[in-house]
Each structure stands twice: as structure tokens, then as C-alpha cells.
């Protein structure tokens, strides 16, 4: 499949699988589109697929492959972040009626955001990422090895929580940081933040948009 001109171009095998919706009653086709959308979050329900196949007097395997293809189609739409117009045009290429196209687009749009989020965050390759940071400011004034009155050492304690990319487990790190290092770190991170606002970054974002 490619996304030339933002249209979804399907290979012949997919087209053949999705062609079933042209051959059955329009309202039944809409029902199948709706059911397929439900299966995206719940997984395929073999029993209801069998029931639907019996009701339509069709082979179970054929209904099943059609639903699989519909699931694939929903996912591809989300992956390409397709616009409604482009989706409508793409569905025309499949020979779908106006009402069926409209129903499919409505179905897709109701779940588009959720699908896109799942694809970009849950399924994508993910490094450990930042979750939270707590800090505390302490002054060390006495220790077992030195009880002199001269101790006065200010420092920060940072507790950094990260989340592992793939298993959602938390990693907790506790550090001691002296004040000068903290100032240096803040300076560096502010530089990092500003980097995204400069012309170079903007130009590159613009190029890929």
C-alpha cells in the first residue's frame, strides 16, 4: 500500500476481500463496519462473526477475512492520518455506495484519535521516558565522623521516576546534587528547550510538514 496523493491505494487481494461489502445488503455492510470497529478494542469475537455469517448466509471464513481487512483499513487510515476527503476518495475506488462510505468515515472518525494514540505511544518503539521528579533541599550539619560545628553543606536530593518503554515498569533514581551542579543543569536544559524555538528547528519542521 502507498499513500500517494494521500489516497489509500490497496492491492488487488485487499480489494477482493473488501468487495464483499458491495455484494450484501447496504445496512448489513454498515453493521459489519460497526462491528469491526468494536473488535479493534475487544479483539475478534468468533461467535458473533459466525452468527453474522449465518444470518447473511455466507461462509464464515469469507466474513472473517472481510472483517480482518476492515480492521487493517482502519489501522492504515490512522497510521497515515488520512483526511476525510482522501478517505472518501479512497473508498470510492472500492466501489462503495455513498451511504456506506459515510458510515465508514463516521466509524473511523469516532475512534481515529484513540487509534492514532495507540499507534504512536503504545505500540511504537519507546525508550525509558520521564514520568516525574521530586526534589528536596537539605543541609548536612553533622555526621558520625565529624561532629564539629563547622558543617554546613547544602545539597539537593532529586528523585527521578522513569517509565520503561515496553513493560510500563517504573524505574526510580535518587541522586544528591550540589547547588552549583543544579544551576549548571538548569542552564543546560533551558538551552535545550530554546533549541526547538530557533530558526534551524523551525525550518526542519516546516520541511517535513
Amino acid at each position: 500500500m502507498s499513500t500517494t496523493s494521500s489516497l489509500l491505494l490497496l492491492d488487488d487481494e485487499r480489494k477482493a476481500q473488501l468487495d464483499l461489502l458491495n455484494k450484501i445488503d447496504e445496512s448489513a455492510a454498515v453493521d459489519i463496519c460497526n462491528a469491526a470497529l468494536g473488535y479493534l478494542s475487544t479483539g475478534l469475537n468468533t461467535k458473533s462473526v459466525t452468527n453474522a455469517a449465518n444470518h447473511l448466509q455466507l461462509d464464515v471464513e469469507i466474513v472473517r477475512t472481510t472483517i480482518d481487512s476492515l480492521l487493517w483499513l482502519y489501522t492504515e487510515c490512522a497510521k497515515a492520518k488520512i483526511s476525510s476527503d482522501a478517505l472518501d476518495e479512497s473508498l470510492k475506488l472500492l466501489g462503495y455506495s455513498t451511504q456506506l462510505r459515510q458510515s465508514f468515515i463516521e466509524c473511523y472518525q469516532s475512534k481515529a484519535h484513540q487509534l492514532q494514540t495507540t499507534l504512536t505511544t503504545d505500540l511504537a518503539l519507546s525508550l525509558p521516558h520521564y514520568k516525574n521528579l521530586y526534589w528536596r533541599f537539605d543541609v548536612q550539619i553533622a555526621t558520625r565522623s565529624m561532629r564539629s560545628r563547622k558543617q554546613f553543606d547544602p545539597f539537593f536530593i532529586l528523585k527521578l521516576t522513569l517509565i520503561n518503554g515496553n513493560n510500563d515498569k517504573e524505574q526510580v533514581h535518587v541522586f544528591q546534587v550540589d547547588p552549583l551542579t543544579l544551576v549548571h543543569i538548569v542552564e543546560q536544559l533551558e538551552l535545550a528547550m530554546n533549541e526547538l524555538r530557533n530558526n534551524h528547528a523551525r525550518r526542519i519542521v516546516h520541511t517535513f510538514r
Partner: protein
Amino acid sequence: MELSSDIEEDFRRLNNQTHISDKNYEELIQKIFSLFTSTNSNIELSSSFDKRLVSSILTFIFECVKYDFDETLIRSKFDDLQFTIKTRQDRFINEYNKNLSIIQLYLKQKSIEYDRLLNINWRLDLQLKTNYTDKLLQPIYILDWTKRDKYTTNIDHIQFSCTQESLQELVEKLKDAQSVLHQMQYQQQTKK
């Protein structure tokens, strides 16, 4: 300060000029105090001082620093220990004062430690595509925090990613922390 009877006995030995010559005493003091300023932690002495004597003097030094003893207190302690030779006392106190700040630092470090954050490094990437998304265009920061593991000299790295929003949150929190320093500075100045 409480010292064991072995240490008390060793200080009486230090007071015995026939047992320890001036030359040997000089070398002993010099070598012991040099421990704090050199990276070499072995003492090699020309004469056959036993290790116990060295450890007794070191213990005495640490106890003095620990309880913040000044010259008067040290002299009175020496007198209690019957270590009374004035020149030898002077020699000790001279070296003690010279090295005091470094010994204090050394003892402060012999405390409970956390991992210590030393530095950070950052990188800014633009995520364009993944196998599940064709059009992403999302900036992502990769941070690398360098830390020294507690009680060791091991340097370790922690790498993680941050979205633009979460980096903003992280920086705000660290700036909050940093503002404590300004407040403290201000309070100090107004008190003066």
C-alpha cells in the same frame, strides 16, 4: 574524646626520646600528614615503626577533627597523655593546622552517600515515522544523566527520553528548586 589504653601507651612512647629519635619523629609526622595530600595511601618509613603507632596517631588526629579541637585543647590532651615534649607537640600542631581543612573534608565524605548527579547531556531529535505511524513529526529530547554510584568511583549513565512538554515540566521543577538558593542568599543578606 576517649582513647583506648593502647593509644595512650603509644603517646607515652612518642614522648620517649631514646625510643624514638627526633629524626624518626619528624619523618613519622611528615609521612602521616602527607597521607591527606597525596594520592598514595601507603606509608613507607625508613625505621621500623610498628603499624600500631601509625594507626594510633591517625586515630588521634581524626578524633581531634571530629570534636573540633583547637590548639589549646590538643595541648591539654597531650599533657593528659604524658606526651609533653614541647617541640614535638609544636611539630604535630603545626602539621595539624596546615592540613585541618582537608582532613575535615575527608571526614565529611566518610558519611552516608547517595548516588551523586554530576552532569547531564542532551540531544534533540525529530521523530518522523515509525512502523506504526507514517506522519509523526514529534520533537523528542534524549537526556543522559551522569552519576557517580554511592560509595564507589564508578561513573554510570541514565538515559531517557522526554517530550517537549515533559522537559518543560522537568525544567520548571528544577527551577523551583534553584529558586531556594536565591531565597537563601536573600535571607542571608537581609540578616546581615
